[in-house]
């Protein structure tokens, strides 16, 4: 168990000031969506510093974690974002797999996997989306067969963030070959460092790589590394998706606020802030971000959360963020069309503009989210 830490804002601030320095100083403001390729090794070490101090798994219920309240977690996220803490590498394990294991896993699985997540000695990635199926998770074609005491996994996943640094992947695979759609899927925990697993970075429209293709070619996982019963993967996987919302949202929004501040600074610097048409759009962006914050605060405090709340939140933030990228380019004007002089690289505005194109696609496209919301509001139809 990690040492006792204080969750008071000044103490968190002091801890971050003391640790995000020296060899870690270059990490300030790096990583995160669109910059996930930056300083990978150093960030992995930083995660272990965070883990050793006890910052990972704050919100996990006892006995697995600290059981910090939402308000306490918010304080940590806000301070972390204010300090310019780098994009996290351990969040997929911490925020997606861990709650899944706590809810659906066996004791053995929790004992085996939670501690190395908390210490950041094992990093995770998520194997859901497949080529050709897009956001249609039930179209999974990756297959797994039980061969004695192990699963043999064959198939291909895409949009796999951080697969190139991950030690493990939770994989949605079809274990009943006769099944279709949501039936016959299982939720497997597959080690990444083995001959049957190949990671190929996808070069994105930004010219950098953040997402990957992952090829499983007879990859092996021990027989007991299935979460829930074999065939129950759909239920487990969708429960994982529901964890994506949560307090991390507020940290994300502080990142957004920094990006908006940069756009405002650029508009002040080149004079477009004085153009009322631009000012109106900036005010709209500011209002939208406040709205996101109010929405997160309301939904986090709701006693009976709306089951489609994650979809509503995703539609709100993805659209807002994408519009911010467009505003950033427009504020830059013609200069937005040329690259930064040296290095011959994207400017922050260009990276924001291009990378936010993905916000409305990955993690369930806007279209999928609208389907989910409409099912709730209008009733389901067969799809």
């Amino acid at each position, binding site marked *: 168990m990690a040492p006792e830490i204080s969750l008071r804002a000044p103490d968190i601030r002091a801890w971050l000031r003391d640790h995000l320095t020296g060899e870690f100083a270059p990490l300030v403001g790096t990583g995160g969506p669109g910059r996930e390729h930056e300083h990978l090794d150093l960030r992995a070490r930083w995660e272990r510093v965070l883990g050793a101090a006890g910052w990972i798994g704050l919100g996990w219920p006892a006995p697995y974690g600290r059981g910090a309240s939402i308000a306490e977690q918010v304080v940590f996220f806000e301070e972390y974002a204010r300090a310019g803490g780098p994009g996290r590498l351990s969040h997929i394990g911490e925020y997606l797999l861990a709650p899944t294991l706590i809810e659906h896993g066996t004791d053995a699985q929790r004992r085996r996997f939670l501690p190395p997540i908390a210490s950041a000695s094992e990093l995770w990635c998520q194997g859901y989306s497949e080529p050709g199926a897009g956001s249609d998770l039930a179209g999974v074609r990756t297959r797994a067969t039980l061969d004695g005491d192990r699963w043999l996994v064959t198939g291909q996943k895409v949009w796999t963030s951080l697969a190139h640094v991950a030690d493990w992947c939770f994989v949605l695979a079809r274990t009943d070959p006769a099944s279709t759609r949501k039936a016959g899927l299982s939720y497997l925990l597959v080690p990444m460092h083995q001959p049957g697993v190949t990671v190929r970075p996808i070069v994105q429209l930004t010219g950098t790589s953040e997402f990957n293709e992952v090829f499983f070619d007879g990859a092996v996982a021990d027989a007991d590394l299935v979460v829930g019963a074999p065939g129950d993967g759909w239920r487990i996987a969708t429960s994982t998706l529901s964890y994506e919302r949560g307090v991390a949202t507020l940290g994300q929004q502080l990142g957004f606020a920094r990006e908006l501040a940069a756009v405002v600074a650029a508009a002040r610097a080149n004079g477009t802030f004085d153009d009322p048409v631009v000012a109106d759009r900036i005010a709209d962006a500011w209002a939208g971000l406040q709205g996101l914050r109010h929405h997160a605060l309301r*939904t986090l405090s709701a006693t009976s959360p709306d089951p489609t709340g994650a979809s509503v939140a995703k539609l709100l933030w993805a659209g807002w963020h994408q519009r911010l990228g467009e505003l950033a380019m427009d504020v830059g004007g013609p200069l937005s069309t040329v690259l930064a002089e040296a290095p011959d690289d994207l400017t922050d505005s260009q990276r924001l503009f291009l990378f936010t194109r993905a916000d409305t696609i990955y993690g369930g496209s806007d279209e999928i989210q609208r389907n989910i919301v409409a099912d709730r509001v209008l009733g389901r139809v067969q799809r």
Partner: protein
Amino acid sequence: MTPEQEALRASVADFFSTGADWGRLTGELGLTALAIGEEHGGFGASLVEVGIVLEEAGAALLSSPLLATTVAALAVDPSLPAAADLLPALAAGDLIGTVALDGTCTARPAGDAFVLDGSFAHVLDAAPAGVVMVSDGTALFAVTDPDLRPQPTLDQTRGQGTLVLWQTPGRLVSHNPAHAQDLLHAALAAESVGVARAALRFTVEHLRTRSQFGVPLATFQALRHRVADLHVQLEQAVSSVWFALGAASTPEFATAAPLAKLIATEAAYTVTRASIQLLGGIGFTWEHDAHRYLKRATANRLLAGDPVTLRRLLLSRADL
């Protein structure tokens, strides 16, 4: 929401569905007394309860000076002498109030009171008002038996009027007229959420029950996605209003209230326009309520600061 708040919502929704009898509304339900302090004959509830009531009033498209009276009462500083005369009457519903913020006036002291000259337009629910809280930009003054001249409105469910002040006596009721505007913003925002929610509800009902091409309209994905977007916008509006009402006694209210007004009135405007489209021909008729919701949404959007004005206000108050 707390169970008490849920119960309040249910009871006022039930009551509004039967009309808006002022006597019952103020007497039996005590809705104008809700947020007035107990020392002045009120219940001392928070703005959150007021918001619940106004949201349901919007959903029912209530034709009543409830919003105007509530804002007028909340704008009064309870520690000033005039409060003791005004608030009990407002709480009891014996006095109907409103606010005049869209106009100009000058106030000069005259003994214990002030003498006001100026004119205002778009005073909500002017016709029945017995007192109007008037802003000269630095303070708020209560004018009783005001010279209010009703104007016919596009939104037949809520009247307006102009106010002429000519050496008119007024009593100081607040040193903070900006707060009166924030209260008006928050009140219109809460009401607009109700307008949007009700319009979305009857639109959804229509889509679920009417068929075209042999299947229910609700099965067409293009319409489903449009409804999803409306739901998302409404949820955002609910959150903004929720936050503003909860922030009533904090400095953040000065941005949260106009923000809620901006977001909620835009949501109501979008939902009610889409509603007429999604209802098809029937939504274009006088007999269907859709146009009344659209007209209220339009009025709430353009009165007390249109979206461009609100964004400018927010930019000036934002920490950017």
